[in-house]
């Protein structure tokens, strides 16, 4: 594919973050928010976009600054950059998607504490040029997003019988006695789903815990 914008290496980088090295299912990072915002698909989508924005942009900024950042204060510099971007995302949500921002409440702000963001900044952006760091951030953001969307889709359909607010479970099913699964609306529902997703993924990829 000569026309593609991304080189083969870059595509591999993204694929890695999506599958072999997925931040949620492989590195088990960012679980807390993955539980909290996945009751509905809409909030999960907004959260996914916000996090992808924050992790890719913070990677770029930190990568540009990487040779200038004194190592003694590098963590706090990373945090300043990340938290500024998070507040930026939060402000835009408050201005343009007020309802969703109210539902997400503290969780947008808590992107700052999401290990994926700091993890990528410290482990990757500090040692690699901006474009590669951007791809890395994007890949990890998408890896997180894919899990979030998967969990949220399942939870909204099973728990509320809707998808993006539209009813998807046909009425006749309710008529013959089908009921929404209340557990899916609560946090344990997300735990079970996440566990199943990790199990399926590891079964396919053949991964085993070493040592």
């Amino acid at each position: 594919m000569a026309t593609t914008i991304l080189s083969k290496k870059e595509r591999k980088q993204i694929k890695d973050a999506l599958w072999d090295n997925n931040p949620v299912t492989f590195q088990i990072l960012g679980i807390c928010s993955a539980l909290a915002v996945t009751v509905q698909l809409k909030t999960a989508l907004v959260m996914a976009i916000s996090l992808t924005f924050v992790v890719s942009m913070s990677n770029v900024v930190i990568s540009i600054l990487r040779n200038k950042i004194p190592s003694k204060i590098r963590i706090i510099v990373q945090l300043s950059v990340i938290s500024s971007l998070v507040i930026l995302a939060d402000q835009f949500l408050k201005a343009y998607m007020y309802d969703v921002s109210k539902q997400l409440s503290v969780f947008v702000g808590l992107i700052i504490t999401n290990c994926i963001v700091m993890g990528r900044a410290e482990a990757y952006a500090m040692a690699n040029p901006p474009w590669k760091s951007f791809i890395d951030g994007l890949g990890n953001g998408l890896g997180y997003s894919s899990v979030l969307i998967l969990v949220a889709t399942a939870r909204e359909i099973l728990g509320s019988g809707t998808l993006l607010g539209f009813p998807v479970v046909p009425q006749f099913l309710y008529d013959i006695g089908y009921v929404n699964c209340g557990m899916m609306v609560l946090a344990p529902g997300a735990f079970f789903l996440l566990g199943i997703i990790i199990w399926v993924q590891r079964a396919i990829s053949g991964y085993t815990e070493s040592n």
Partner: protein
Amino acid sequence: MGKDFNKESSSYIFTFAMIICVVCSFSLALVSQGLKAKKETNIALDIKKNILKAVNLEEHLALKASATEIEAAYENKIEELVIDPSGNIVEGKSPKDIVEGESLYPVYVYKEGSQKKAYCFPIVGKGLWSTLYGYLALEPDAMTVRGITYYDHGETPGLGAEIEKDWFQNNFKGKKIWDLKENKLHPVAVVKGKVADKYSGENAQFYVDGISGATMTSKGVTEMIARELNKYEPFFQKIRK
């Protein structure tokens, strides 16, 4: 950079930290100011939506009512009043005109035609982590709760933040704030645990179920309802007569 440039020297670290701080705060201030008008419109609309929710409109607004629908319903059904501490209506003032620190209080009257259906007023108080903002609406008898909402807080999701959930707010509907036997104010209070385990018969009507794991938030709710009701008591006294 010169040969003697030292990235780890204290002066460099301080300069670098300063630049980061200034750049970050400047860009955030810029964005916050740029979006201010938009955010304020959203907040004003949200407040109207919450007043409409607290007074429990007879014709329920759709959950996804558009901005114009909310504005229209508010315009048609809600009358804005301002009262002074002795409960008299201050003519010619609207809640918007109240300056901070002034002891004038807003009241929102819900009307269907010419019939008064509810009195709604803001309630503000401390929860565990944050200040809680909401509205409480009373029936025209000024003794019964018609509805309550919370629209802004910073409590823990799943614990204190349950105050914004329907199950919690619905518990308040029909509860009493006036003790008819003793003829005095008896503000509705949040109990620890379930009301049914603690109070029975007549007494149960002054209490609502608590939120487990959120004792401090519940206490805050109880405290602010009592305080605000006392503040508005002179006004409601006149209505009860």
